[in-house]
């Protein structure tokens, strides 16, 4: 299993005071909170940070962790020596936040057991409690948002078995993705979360929609963008050309004198919704290579006959 250097994760020195550790945690938590930071790895970093803080904020855990010394670096292969925690006392502090419930293997191997014992020792005050909600992402194609689709999703969730050990459970669900979904939107599957305690209801499962990157289309809300390469003569003279959309191929009229960089709107051809999104074609004028005598000759003819100076406004 990989060693975790909690000090470098928190960006503090090994002799940092508890106040410095707390301050570092607060700063980084605001920076990496997944609701604030849209980077793909923000959630993982936030969890790692929570775990690091959980150990370093607790003087007992920190002292136990510190015996591994500064020679260890994150990512190094690590196994705790037998009896490593002998002589260290744990009263068990709760997690830094509920989101820290899923710890790394490294944390589990060091503090997992004491952690659960301490939690059990504290006991649950309420007799009935609603089950936990689960969250997962589902990656879909742009065309799924046009037509709707059924996705098979395998979820992995840690569970505590009857003997108190942590086990990983897999389950597969077939879920209907309705048409008209947007990036980041969530689907709620009531009662598909964890079982409740006592008379508590089951939690819910939330699936967050994520579009796979497409080689042609970009998605912005319900609008879809396509970069469309066109020839200089199509741009200059106008043309009727075939354009792909996630729904169907359409004929698009390029008006004479089209400039690159503008966008043409195909109203209502975006992702279906009420009102539907639009489909935007962004023409990109591409130049044919002068890679034959004939092509060179044509460019030369243009040079001679067209009297075109794109720099006329520059006074040169």
């Amino acid at each position, binding site marked *: 299993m990989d060693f975790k250097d909690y000090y470098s994760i928190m960006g503090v020195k090994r002799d940092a005071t508890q106040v410095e550790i707390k301050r570092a945690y607060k700063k980084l938590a605001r920076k990496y909170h*997944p609701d604030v930071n849209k980077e793909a790895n923000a959630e993982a970093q936030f969890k790692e940070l929570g775990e690091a803080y959980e150990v370093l904020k607790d003087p007992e855990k920190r002292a136990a962790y510190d015996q591994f010394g500064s020679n260890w670096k994150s990512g190094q292969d690590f196994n705790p020596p037998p009896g490593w925690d002998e002589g260290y006392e744990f009263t068990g502090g709760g997690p830094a936040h509920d989101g820290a419930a899923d710890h790394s293997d490294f944390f589990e191997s060091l503090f997992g057991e004491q952690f659960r014992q301490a939690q059990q020792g504290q006991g649950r005050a309420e007799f009935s409690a*609603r089950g936990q909600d689960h969250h997962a992402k589902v990656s879909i194609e742009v065309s799924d948002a046009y037509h709707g689709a059924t996705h098979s999703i395998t979820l992995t969730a840690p569970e505590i078995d009857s003997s108190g050990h942590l086990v990983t459970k897999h389950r597969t669900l077939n*879920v209907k993705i309705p048409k*008209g979904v947007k990036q980041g*939107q969530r689907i709620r599957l009531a009662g598909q979360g964890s079982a409740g305690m006592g008379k508590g*209801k089951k939690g819910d499962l939330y699936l967050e929609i994520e579009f796979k990157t497409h080689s042609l289309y970009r998605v*912005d809300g319900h609008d879809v963008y396509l970069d469309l390469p066109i020839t200089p003569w199509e741009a200059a003279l106008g043309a009727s050309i075939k354009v792909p959309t996630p729904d169907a191929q359409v004929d698009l009229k390029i008006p004479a004198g089209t*400039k690159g*960089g503008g966008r043409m709107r195909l109203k209502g051809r975006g992702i279906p919704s009420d009102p539907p999104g639009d489909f935007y074609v962004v023409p990109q004028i591409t130049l044919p290579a002068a890679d034959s005598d004939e092509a060179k000759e044509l460019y030369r003819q243009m040079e001679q006959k067209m009297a075109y100076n794109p720099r006329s406004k520059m006074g040169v």
Partner: protein
Amino acid sequence: MTNEILKGDLLDESVELSLNELCQACSSSTEWVVELVEEGVLEPIGYQQTLWRFSGSCLDRAHKAMRLQRDLHINLSGVALALELLDEIETLQSRLMRIEQSNNG
């Protein structure tokens, strides 16, 4: 694995939740949701509390508020401010993306 196909609720404007349903989905107290409404974080339809209807995006927002409050230990006014600023950043980023696109041609 079963072959059953699950159909969930897409959390958009067409979903309608009562105050009670929203509290259940958030495992929260009624007071907490009322406070969110008072802060302007959630804008239900309906004048009276008993008639309030919350959209799916309200549920999204309530969850976000809950995570921010829990993880960053900020009070509800702070949460409201953070959410408004996040909305603004999102609007600006999407505008920026459109401007960059039309400049690339």
